[in-house]
């Protein structure tokens, strides 16, 4: 690991200006994604700006038609929150299925969406539910946020403060985890909510999270497992790694979509 400067500011504003001043500055939240990259030498930020001392970013609030989750909320917090379990149980189930207990106790929602790992779970939830990502300077619709593998609409010095999820009529989550890391080999959130009927898939494509129009159309006419069970996605755009080849991944997308609808 390379040397770096460590900062722990007390406010979002201070964090933003430290990021601006630092040479190749990076926010660190739970560190569950960033630190392994630094350890492997794949990332070498010159300045690390921790959000650990910033208060007010770890609340979960019921805003009526939306649930607002602070950027520093851990996966464990989201999984356990009564508000989430009651109003968007699929989101709680998703958070509960991330990694292992250690990762859930450290990893944050802000880190997960900012990192946009193609196998991370939150991007699928954000896209399917039509979430809004709030930052220090603006609001970004999930549709405009996830731009491809490890790539988002965030600017270099931009800090996520919260993610807001519209409460759906129904939503379901199913994922097939990688046996080692528990990252999604294929994870699907199927939702029927204010953003319409949506099916968002993570883990399967090298381009990151994506929606399946054909499944959405089928579900819009009948929100039943059988509607998606016969819809296949093309293996061409699928990821291939040691855990699964493209055809198998494509097959899993259909199976997980069906199970997600069953869960809804």
């Amino acid at each position, binding site marked *: 690991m390379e040397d770096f400067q460590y900062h722990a500011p007390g406010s979002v504003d201070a964090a933003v200006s430290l990021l601006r001043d630092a040479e190749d500055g990076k926010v660190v939240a739970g560190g569950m994604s960033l630190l*392994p990259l630094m350890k492997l030498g794949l990332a070498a930020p010159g300045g690390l700006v921790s959000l650990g001392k910033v208060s007010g970013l770890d609340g979960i609030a019921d805003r009526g038609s939306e649930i607002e989750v602070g950027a520093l909320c851990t996966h464990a917090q989201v999984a356990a929150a009564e508000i989430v379990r009651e109003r968007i149980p699929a989101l709680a189930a998703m958070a509960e299925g991330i990694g*292992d207990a250690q990762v859930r106790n450290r990893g944050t929602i802000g880190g997960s969406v900012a990192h946009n790992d193609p196998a991370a779970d939150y991007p699928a939830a954000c896209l399917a539910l039509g979430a809004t990502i709030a930052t220090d300077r603006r609001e970004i619709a999930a549709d405009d946020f996830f731009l491809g593998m490890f790539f988002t609409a965030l600017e270099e010095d931009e800090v996520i403060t919260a993610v807001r999820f519209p409460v759906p009529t129904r939503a379901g989550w199913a994922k*097939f985890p*990688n*046996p*080692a*890391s528990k990252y999604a080999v294929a994870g699907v959130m199927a939702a029927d909510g204010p953003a319409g009927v949506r099916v968002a898939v993570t883990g399967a494509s090298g381009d990151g999270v994506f929606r399946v129009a054909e499944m959405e159309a089928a579900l819009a006419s009948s929100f039943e*497992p*059988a509607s998606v*069970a*016969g819809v296949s996605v093309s293996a061409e755009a699928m990821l291939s790694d*040691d*855990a*699964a*080849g493209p055809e*198998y991944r494509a*097959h*899993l997308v*259909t*199976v997980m979509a*069906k199970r997600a609808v*069953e869960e809804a």
Partner: protein
Amino acid sequence: MIRPAAGGAAQAPEALSVVGRRMRKVDGLAKATGRARYTDDIALPGMLHGKILRSPHPHARILAIDTSRAAALEGVHAVVTGRDMPTTYGIIPWTPDEHPLCVDRVRYVGDGVAAVAAVDEDTANAALELVEVAYEELPAYLDPHDAIAAADGPFIHEPRKPGRNGNVTKVVKLAFGDVEAGIAAAREEGGVVVEGDYFFEGTTHTPIEPHCAIGLADASGKLTVWSATQVPHYLHRELARVLELDPAMVRVVQPPVGGAFGGKSEPFDLEFCVAKLSMITGRPVKILYTREEVFYSHRGRHPFHMRYRTGARADGVLAAVDAEIVMDGGAYASFGLVTTYYSGQLLTAPYQMPAYRFHSTRAYTNKPACGPKRGHGSVQPRFAFEVQLDRIAEALEIDPIELRRRNALGEGTRTVNDLRVTSNGFLECLAMVEDASAWRRKFRRLPYGRGVGVAGSTYISGTNYPVYPNDMPQSAVQLQVDRSGRVAVFSGASEIGQGVDSMVAYVVAEELGVPLDHVRVFAGDTDFTPVDLGAYSSRVTFMLGNACIDAARRVKRQVQKVVAEAWDAKPQEVLLAGGLAVRAGDTGTQMPIREAFNLAEAAFGALGATGSYDTPKDVHGSYRGATIGASPAYSFTAHVAEVEVDPETGFVDVVQIWIAHDCGRALNPVLVEGQMEGSAYMGFAEAIMEEQIFKTADQGRAGLHNAPSLLDYRIPTSLDTPALRSLIVESIDPEGPYGAKEAGEGPLHPSIPAIANAIYDAVGVRMNALPFSPPRVWRALQAEAARTPAARSAATPAAVS
């Protein structure tokens, strides 16, 4: 002269006061509370840190190495290359094909090229980047078949004899009985001949503790090496040989080891490097492998390509077995000569085989070297063979447990390849798993998706011969009794977590009647312990246990003699137990054991003894290779696995494994159960998850490990692990210590075929290649669905909801 096995099996359990009880490990508290000091916990004054530069190429000639810039870096104390240690070594004396650092050729991505010692790790790493190596790349072989086919080269190693294929490490062809006649008879007499191709993916050991070594060459010319090794004696020999030192001036210390599983049973580059770097700098030098280096150093299970032909008569009795095996050895020989023999020799129990033939070829490839992993050489064939048996049972419509029963070898016999078998509890193992798993209610009766499978196995309790020929004992201890009543045992054996030191204490406490915590075990230091060959091939309890009994009984006889004189009794009437010497039949006559020891010391002088064990030499045939696979005793195991298969995803959930194991006698049932569970766990991991994948040239970097980290290399955590139920069978071996045999490796073998057979019971597909990962099982289901309409309806997602 070497004394024959002390045995002690005749002792009835009621006469034993320590052995057989459920006890803690003697080192358990120190390890559980973090006070045990592993090699990396040792920091010596003035210690330097070493790092090894590793090859980025799978196969290349080294044209030149320039270390001058590295040596000039501030904080760097020494740089060495292969030329500083030109002597080859290898754990098997007939195949020394490794250098501590490569001299003129690198043979896998990760092969060591140069080593530096610096004030800290960062400086050492920075220095590595300044070492300039000019390579000329050579064609790389990643598949053993390709390597064998290249009979005219280029070769990974120069052939040992001109005209030979330098890509072949070892070929073993052995035949016993008339295989073709057996096959023909099976065909003609209403029996069955089953043929199958199997692939066993290689796997690695993944011990928690990475390899670590510290070298210290002192001013007197003495070299001390601390190392996380499981073979201090062999390391001692090789250090002296390679570094051209008098062995009497070399000391190897083995601190507690954090897991080994066969992955630390030969010398490694870091041990030579710390020694050499310390000899140059005069300062202690430490090298700790990164996790990545552990993966590349490997010596794990060989990938095996296997073809079996098995014939059975109509009643299910085996007629002939024929095997053809190609083994992927990786870049160096390691234990490969033994592995090649084991691949065939260890299959001949627990079933009687009237005719058996095997032809095994080990090839070099440009990948990390394979070696011994728990169940060395025999886990792969066992997988294939037990699946073959399942297919025979099905073809003949015989229950698979019944089929195995009909073929059981029995005790007090010889196998088809002339291995002597003493005790044998295999039938009891079968009966126990059959009952415990409710087999008869489940087999072929569970709903689609759920199934049970059975498999059996055997394993050696130590190899009959050391890796280098000699007539000295295989294992020895020295006892020394203090006036306080404390007994010190100096043991050369390697505690690697399996409980050897505890076993020593149990045996000595049993024999001398002292409380367990009055036995101190000093182990793993070649300067003050007699030689034990190491923790491999499940040899330690059998051999060291007998050596302990031998030593303890010598002291015991002296004590009994003097106490008997004092009491006017016969020596055998003096019992030593529970901290007392007691007169048999007259418990009123007694004295504290300490007083008894003092009487003995007064009569005979300082109280102590040595004890040793060597194997009997009449336990095998006389053909070439007959000694490899020979053991003084064999353990037996049977497993039943129950699985739940998700037919839509191919995910196999192993719900439970019932493990019955004949360990002869459980000296401490807790430790035996631990070994059984650990073995079944490891087998489960290999069956379902582990996969060693290397990139090909098409994928950019030939020979690069795809997942050299614990984030990506899949091994189960406790959450993934099935329920494991251990059922101990005690056949009381006539030559084992109190009747004990091995428990550390045998119980791994059947997990894998039992799971494969259970998958067949659950969803009707034969898994002939490891691992049974979701995509593989799914593809097998797809193929089956394409073949039979019935399976199709079950395996397509639309039909299952």
